[in-house]
């Protein structure tokens, strides 16, 4: 499991096999707004980056989050 998946798994409290790139907040009851910001903060901490507001808003799924973090040059 990579860093991004482990952040989601840790904060959302899901089983490892439940963390796929298709996991999206629209279909995940545990992924509320506060958890969303916890995920952002954890990713910022792990990668040493500051995520822009537009990117925070665009993190709709694990896969999309991975794409966004990649634009910061840390993956």
């Amino acid at each position, binding site marked *: 499991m990579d860093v991004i998946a482990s952040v989601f798994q840790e904060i959302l409290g899901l089983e490892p096999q439940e963390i796929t790139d298709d996991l999206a907040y629209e279909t995940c009851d545990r*992924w509320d*707004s*506060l958890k969303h910001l916890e995920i952002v903060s954890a990713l910022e901490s792990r990668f040493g980056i500051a995520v822009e507001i537009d990117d925070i808003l665009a993190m*709709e799924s694990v896969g999309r989050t991975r794409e966004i973090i990649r634009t910061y040059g840390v993956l």
Partner: protein
Amino acid sequence: MYEGNPYRTRHTDDLCLVGAFLDDRLVGVHGWLPLVVNHHGTPRTGCHFCNWLAAPDMRRGSWPIRLTTDPIRAIGADACFGFAFTPQSRPILQRLGWTIDAALPRHTRILDAGAFAGLFAGQPAVVEATAGWASGPCPAEGGDVVERASLRDVDWDDVYWSQLAPASWGPARERAWLVWRYEEVPGFAYRFLTLMRDGAPAGLLVFRVELVSGTPFTVIRIVDILAGPEDWEPLLARCVAIGVAAGAALADFFCASTRVGAVLAKAGFVAGSAGQPDPVPFLFRPLDPPPQAQEFGWQFTGADPAVCGGDLYLTKADGDFDRPN
């Protein structure tokens, strides 16, 4: 879906409400009051957050956050203000760059010790906590202070923008805003004291006399003092004199500015202790026990945010706290 403001004025004819629908179900609302922001004498665009609600089953991911960021961007707000955050909204807004302060500073003066003791006879802790707040003599009146029934005909904006606005920042106090807030959609009956100099207004104090429901006691609620530091004293003196003559128990003023403490103290007002609960109730309809601090916050996204801070002028009149409770 965006909606305009039914209480349309020059300041509030913009969009002020966004509703989010899932199929035909309303699942989220964000409402705000558009306003002109004074940024040290320069007018900018801003808003006051009023309502931000999302259905519990829709509080997912970034969606509720988008509910507030999208419309604020749409109106191009340089600054946003708000009161009374929740455990849910506070961390979100802070992550969006808001500064949230624990308490809107309150300044309170006992006007009539007997009335004060009578008002809080059922709350001995209040009387005990304020034992050192001697009411003291009325500050000396002076200057040409005139009480007015309306501000509609007062030539105010020139003096506000040229002489008063450069010293602070926050929601602008143009005449149109004052008339809208205190005369058109008032909530209470407000009274206006203007300090005149050379035939023109140099300062303004807005207050109201509130009857504590179920009692014979009244309190003076000051909601705006717009004047240079040297002009606060005559305005406060007249207001205090009016309150004393009316037998009011106390006068209070909630204001974010860190510059107002000294002149208020000179007029006998006691500032609340930072980080400490205020010992005196502030809800009088009906009289409530001492409340929690009145949290307030702001975000400035325009140019030069570093200069914003202690000279923020924001009062209880900017939120819903000066509405009948």
